[in-house]
């Protein structure tokens, strides 16, 4: 009996190992260009990682269908980092040293990306993230030097918040603001800090500020507090799922002031969850709008919807841009040498992406216009475009 149990256990172990081994045994072919895709496919932020990965795979398939790059096909090596920063480093090391990828896409969050940066720098492999918005990702906070191998296709936090503050004070004419941010998220906290500074600089006042945590679903207690504070506008630099719930609960409590937010709002689920009515009188800053009539955007939205059955959110768009940007850089570099690709990336000028034409500044951040979108009866409408003052 005992030996039987042992046999079963060891058989299972062997099975697992041999399965894993066959996974490793992909044969090396020189007619493909390997690109590492290191994203959060399971765990807490799997939603962001998965949409980004989907958009990247879509882009690569399109590029390959159009003949590939330098006569070769791009082969994506997709690995999951479990939404765990240490695991992201583990995955990156595997991608770079075992799979010999020429470039590394992802991860989605600032924390995981920061953990991967030293590996990419050590092996001189370029990294492009589509949604790590913290300034520290591309600039070392201690030395103030730009990290040579790190790039991103999303805004960093400040420009969006600067534009939001300007819009709130100058265009909407509000003075008393409340801020409700995600306390467990660097992106949200970054926007909150900058927004607060800017509002005060423009003569406004922050009358209430509060953080929520990642797992929260119940926002009524804090919203009740905001209601008492007499805020004329509530700024929520968070992600759509929470934002939708916050706004819906706020309207329920009879809070009818305008809400203002950032690119994290962008998702069809915002309307689906909160309902079109609750979203009237709300605004957010964004990279792109799926309603943008340009052919490029519409083709992307259509292709994405056909393949995955949903309208791409803004982080799908930035991931899609990251994939195309990389292919473009490989083309311009004319080789698959990682240092040459990095150099080509740094020299990117007027790259025509879904999220607008952009170039990289000396800190490897894309310089692009910020769109302010107003929700009108559940439809995104372009309110205005503002170029952030750097």
């Amino acid at each position: 009996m005992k030996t039987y149990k042992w046999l079963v256990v060891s058989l299972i172990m062997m099975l697992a190992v041999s399965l894993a081994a066959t996974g490793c045994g992909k044969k090396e072919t020189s007619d493909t260009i390997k690109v590492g895709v290191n994203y959060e496919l399971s765990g807490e932020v799997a939603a962001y990682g998965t949409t980004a990965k989907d958009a990247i795979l879509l882009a690569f398939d399109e590029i390959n269908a159009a003949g590939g790059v330098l006569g070769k096909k791009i082969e994506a090596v997709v690995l999951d980092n479990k939404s765990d920063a240490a695991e992201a480093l583990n995955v990156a090391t595997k991608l770079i040293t075992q799979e010999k990828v020429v470039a590394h896409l992802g991860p989605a969050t600032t924390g995981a990306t920061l953990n991967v940066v030293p590996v990419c720098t050590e092996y001189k492999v370029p990294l492009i993230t589509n949604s790590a918005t913290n300034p520290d990702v591309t600039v070392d906070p201690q030395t103030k030097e730009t990290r040579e191998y790190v790039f991103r296709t999303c805004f960093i936090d400040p420009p969006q918040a600067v534009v939001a503050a300007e819009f709130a004070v100058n265009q909407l004419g509000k003075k008393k603001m409340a801020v409700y941010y995600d306390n467990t998220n660097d992106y949200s906290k970054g926007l909150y800090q900058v927004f607060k500074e800017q509002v005060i600089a423009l003569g406004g006042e922050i009358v209430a500020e509060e953080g929520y945590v990642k797992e929260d679903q119940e926002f009524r207690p804090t919203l009740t507090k905001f209601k008492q504070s007499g805020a004329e506008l509530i700024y929520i630099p968070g992600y759509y799922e929470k934002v939708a719930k916050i706004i819906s609960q706020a309207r329920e409590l009879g809070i009818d002031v305008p809400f203002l937010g950032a690119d994290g709002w962008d998702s069809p689920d915002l309307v689906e969850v909160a309902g079109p009515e609750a979203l009237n009188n709300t605004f957010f800053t964004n990279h792109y709008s799926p309603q943008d009539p340009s052919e490029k955007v519409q083709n992307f939205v259509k292709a994405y919807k056909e393949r995955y059955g949903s309208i791409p959110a803004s982080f799908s768009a930035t991931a899609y841009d990251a994939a195309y940007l990389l292919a473009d850089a490989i083309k311009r570099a004319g080789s698959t040498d990682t240092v040459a690709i990095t150099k080509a990336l740094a020299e990117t000028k007027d790259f025509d992406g879904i999220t607008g034409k952009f170039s990289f500044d000396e800190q490897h951040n894309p310089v692009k216009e910020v769109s302010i979108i107003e929700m009108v009866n559940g439809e995104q409408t372009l309110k205005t475009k503002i170029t952030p003052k750097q």
Partner: protein
Amino acid sequence: METFIAQLLNGLSLGSIYALIALGYTMVYGIIQLINFAHGEVLMIGAFAGFYAITKLKLNFFLALIFAMVVSALLGIIIELAAYRPLRNSPRLAALITAIGVSLFLQNGGLVVFGADYVSFPQAVNKVTYKLLGGSVTVTSHQILILIVTIVMMLVLQYIVLKTKTGKAMRAVSFDKDAALLMGINVDSVISITFAIGSALAAVAGVLLGMYYQTIYPLMGTMPGLKAFVAAVLGGIGIIPGAMAGGFLLGIIETFVSGYWSTTYRDVVVFGLLIVILIVKPAGLLGKDTREKV
């Protein structure tokens, strides 16, 4: 004063959700003394079952709720049969690890099958907002519905456990499995029934949670599950009214910490209070102080 009443109402509706989940936890714990970490995941599966029943099978809300309860009950029975029953006479820690394993399996299985995205839950019951005290306090029909369902569920459970034959068998098994067996009680089927009831309750909680917070996703059960477990311990685990009391208490405390201090300290306060209560009254608020059976 109005703010206070508004916050109290906020706390009550949050608490009723915790109470509902805690009821299922307490049932399972009461009978086999196992922290069923997979309870939150059963809740998630129940919510998705309800979602598909409404959107794909076009059932109305109450039929969908029953469908979700049946699916979850079956899942609960299967989990018990496959993962917990073989370990009944093993060290309790082994069962705890399997519970974690089942929970991880369902979570990640959910991520693959349902996708990682938030799914917006159809508003199958109309939401009406009632304004009280001149508009400064509002209550929605959803909040009232959840509160009523929770209280009804508690009463039904109390009735089953105290007044029916099955309930008597449950109490006997909970008290002493071997003696119950000798008395001619089919221990296996009593435990299966308990899991079925506990899991069906989780499904109710899942569907109501989906409706109340409007989204469902594969990881939706984890945090409410943990909080509900804390609620069950607060009230005295294994005691049905205790789960209820613990749930309401937890909901109200969380709301007041968020409303009058800061959300970021909420969990610190909640867990701190849990520890204080455990130390002062280890068996929970409504529990009897007995030394744990060895």
